[in-house]
């Protein structure tokens, strides 16, 4: 079947510091050596992916007052790895998470503008916010930001960064050796702003980069996060990868764009997705079970349960029944530095649901955790996975996917070799890069200097 509908966008997420990443497999390589990053980036570029994505966390996670040791721990500096990857790739977009709370606009804008120059227009910024004093302990200002101001800080930070990106107009550098005119303007980079978060003024010192502004990603799922994305982002990194959840999220966020004078193609919805690929669907299902067992060891099952129960459960047997006590409804103290714990809005109710499910299915704690956490998005043969991805995109559940392999660094190799060609045959995925910049890959208009638009006001 050949359906020339929407084009699918695909990106690769370097395996992260959570239990999706299987470090215990004999094929699992280093999470820190540059060779691993280069391998995944080259695979993604060979497969004509839109971009490679790096996450970030600015404090090592803790559980029960100790550094969490069951998942991959440790990662490199985002900007530095992306700049180095620009040397070993030529088209692949380079996207990184950078925090708007524990950074300042002048420095971050310099770093992204530099990355964009050094990559020939391939930089993207996933703007995240944090507010916790736990992370703040690593930074000059500590936990200075109240939780309810974090999106305001992020919006303001981004607005300030845009002002800096736009402070050179792209025509400033003449560099005419004969006349001796290097600059067309005496005051390139001039900027000034004063708001609740930033009172800054002066001259930005990086000339306008190939994309003008890096592509902006947003990843938060809250009401405020969705609104932030609708107002300011070029792409949203969501967690809704199934048909119904995806369609609901897609409709919701795209529906918010008009309020900001934006059209539906100005914001791409790209859920994170995992995959398990094998020759046949049956083999893939079997492999998926094995991967889940690798992802959720007995110790990991206990740790996950502790994140819901908000209690020390180290005395429980992961191969036995669920804890008989109820979760501690008080302030969350067990797991720190982990955003996912905030997902449990009703821990006692969730625990009740889990117990019921375990009883019906005769599941141990570990089996239950395998059931209720992080199921693989795509499991099947290459044809099955290609079909599923394409159908979700054509059904407006997403504009594509950010794929998270469970093995480092080779976890994308087979997908590149076996699934991508099928999507290409169906005419829904590029066979060559048409452009050189990430904005071009994503079908986004070049960032001109819309000083009149709401996006650069402030």
């Amino acid at each position, binding site marked *: 079947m050949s359906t020339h509908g929407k084009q699918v966008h695909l990106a690769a997420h370097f395996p992260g510091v959570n239990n999706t990443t299987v*470090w*215990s497999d004999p094929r699992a390589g280093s999470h*820190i*050596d*540059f060779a691993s990053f*280069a391998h995944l980036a080259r695979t993604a570029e060979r497969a004509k992916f839109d971009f490679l994505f790096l996450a970030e966390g*600015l*404090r*090592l996670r803790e559980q029960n007052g100790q*550094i969490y*040791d*069951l*998942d991959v*721990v*440790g*990662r*490199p*500096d985002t*900007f*530095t*790895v992306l*700049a*180095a990857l*620009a*040397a070993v790739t030529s088209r692949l977009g380079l996207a990184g998470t950078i925090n708007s709370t*524990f*950074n*300042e606009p*002048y*420095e971050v804008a*310099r770093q992204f503008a*530099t*990355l964009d*120059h*050094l*990559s020939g227009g391939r930089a993207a910024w996933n703007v995240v916010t944090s507010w916790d004093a736990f992370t703040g*302990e*690593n*930074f*000059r200002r500590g936990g200075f930001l109240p939780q309810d101001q974090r999106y305001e800080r992020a919006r303001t930070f981004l607005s300030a960064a845009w002002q800096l990106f736009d402070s*050179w107009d792209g025509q400033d*550098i003449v*560099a005419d*050796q004969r006349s*001796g*005119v*290097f600059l067309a303007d*005496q005051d*390139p*980079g001039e900027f000034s702003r004063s708001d609740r978060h*930033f009172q800054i*003024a*002066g*001259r*930005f*010192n*990086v000339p306008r980069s190939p994309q003008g502004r890096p592509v902006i990603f947003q990843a938060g799922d809250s009401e405020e996060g969705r609104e932030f994305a609708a107002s300011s982002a070029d792409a949203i990194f969501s967690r809704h990868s199934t048909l119904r959840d995806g369609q609901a999220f897609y409709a919701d966020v795209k529906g918010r764009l008009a309020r900001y004078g934006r059209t539906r193609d100005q914001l791409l919805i790209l859920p994170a997705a995992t995959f398990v690929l094998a020759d046949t669907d049956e083999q893939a299902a079997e492999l998926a079970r094995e991967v889940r067992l690798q992802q959720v*060891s*007995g*110790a990991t099952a206990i740790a996950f349960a502790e994140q819901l129960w908000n209690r020390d459960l180290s005395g429980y047997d992961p191969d036995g029944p669920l804890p008989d006590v109820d979760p501690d409804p008080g302030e969350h103290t067990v797991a720190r530095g982990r955003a996912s714990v905030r997902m449990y809005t009703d821990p006692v109710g969730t625990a009740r649901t889990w117990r019921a499910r375990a009883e019906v299915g005769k599941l141990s704690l570990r089996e239950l955790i395998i059931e209720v956490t992080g199921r693989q998005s795509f499991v099947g043969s290459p044809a099955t996975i290609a079909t599923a991805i394409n159908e979700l995109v054509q059904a407006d559940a997403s504009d594509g996917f950010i794929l998270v392999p469970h093995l480092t660094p080779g976890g994308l190799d087979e997908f590149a070799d076996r699934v991508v060609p099928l999507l290409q045959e169906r005419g829904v995925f590029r066979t060559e890069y048409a452009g050189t910049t990430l904005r071009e890959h994503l079908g986004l208009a070049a960032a001109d200097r819309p000083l009149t638009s709401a996006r650069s006001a402030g």
Partner: protein
Amino acid sequence: MEDTMHLGIALEGAGWHPAAWREPDARPAELFSAGYWTDLVTEAERGLADFVTFEDGLSLQSTLADRPDRRTDQVRGRLDAVLVAARVAPLTRHIGLIPTVVATHTEPFHNSKAIATLDYVSTGRAGVRVRISARPDEAAHFGRRDGRPQAVDLLDEAADYVEVTRRLWDSWEDDAEIRHLPTGRFIDRDKLHYIDFQGRWFSVKGPSITPRPPQGQPLVAALGHGDLAYWLIGRAADLAFVTPRDPDEADAAVAGIRAAQAAVGRADDTLLVLADLVVFLDDEPGKAAARLARLNEVAGLDYASDAAIFAGPPTQLADLMTGWAASTGLSGFRLRPAAIPHDLAAITRGLVPELQRRGVRPPGYQASTLRGHFGLARPANRYAA
């Protein structure tokens, strides 16, 4: 090689002379491209330099000390130095990469992981040159400091910044990653350490999010012109760049640094002192001086520098360098090519072969890490039991 003279090259824009970008072989329109910097570092590596440095600052270049000068006839604008170093790292094999960071306005936690990561992407060739900024225009870019800071405070803060950077590099022991299947543990968390730094300027908890870098401790460098900066160097640096005009000044600088080192109990630590020289190099006698005069005329100024300026043939520069190195406590030089590519190529293709003939530069790289180029072993971890 006991009598090896260490050699670094200070990269800056189109060269250190303000009119360098006007030279016919200059590439002023490419100063913000990866290809330009790759070519420069590749050339420096061809000349077997121990390292290159990358200048940086958080304001537009200016001839004025406190504000933009609004000039349109000189190079303005620059890329982030750490990222330029990272961009060239995978394309080079041996040369050390020392970007500049401004301690005054940046986070030691970010800096530590950035330089550790530069060490990973270069497989052990990273260093960092730390500087301060007292410029009010630079402070206004951040809006977080009021008033006119005292240099002594900024230097004290920079010393703490280096201390935090270094502790974070050691905050993971080398064998912290265990991948222990029976217990499901990826790391032995007893081998990760909170640094618990509490100082006058900031507090940092740790550990780093980045494991200990390949060199353990990348090299920390600083440029100093007098006792205040020597105090920072004595407290914090492995490499010092100084700006003597003659051997006596070189000895005075070395003595100042040794005194500062002793005062903080670091007398036994290796701290190498290199002299900065701005160089205009041409084989033909008189030609380099004529070129300097011509560039001055183009720029409409008499070029002055904090460092001594040498204009002459490479053989004569080799005389000067070997003479100073033999009679002073200097361990080598950091050369600032006045015009790029001309003076850079004159260093790598003229001066270096001359120094090799005199037996003070090796015939090839003897090591593949920056520490290795200075004969420094990988240090023990301060937190290891």
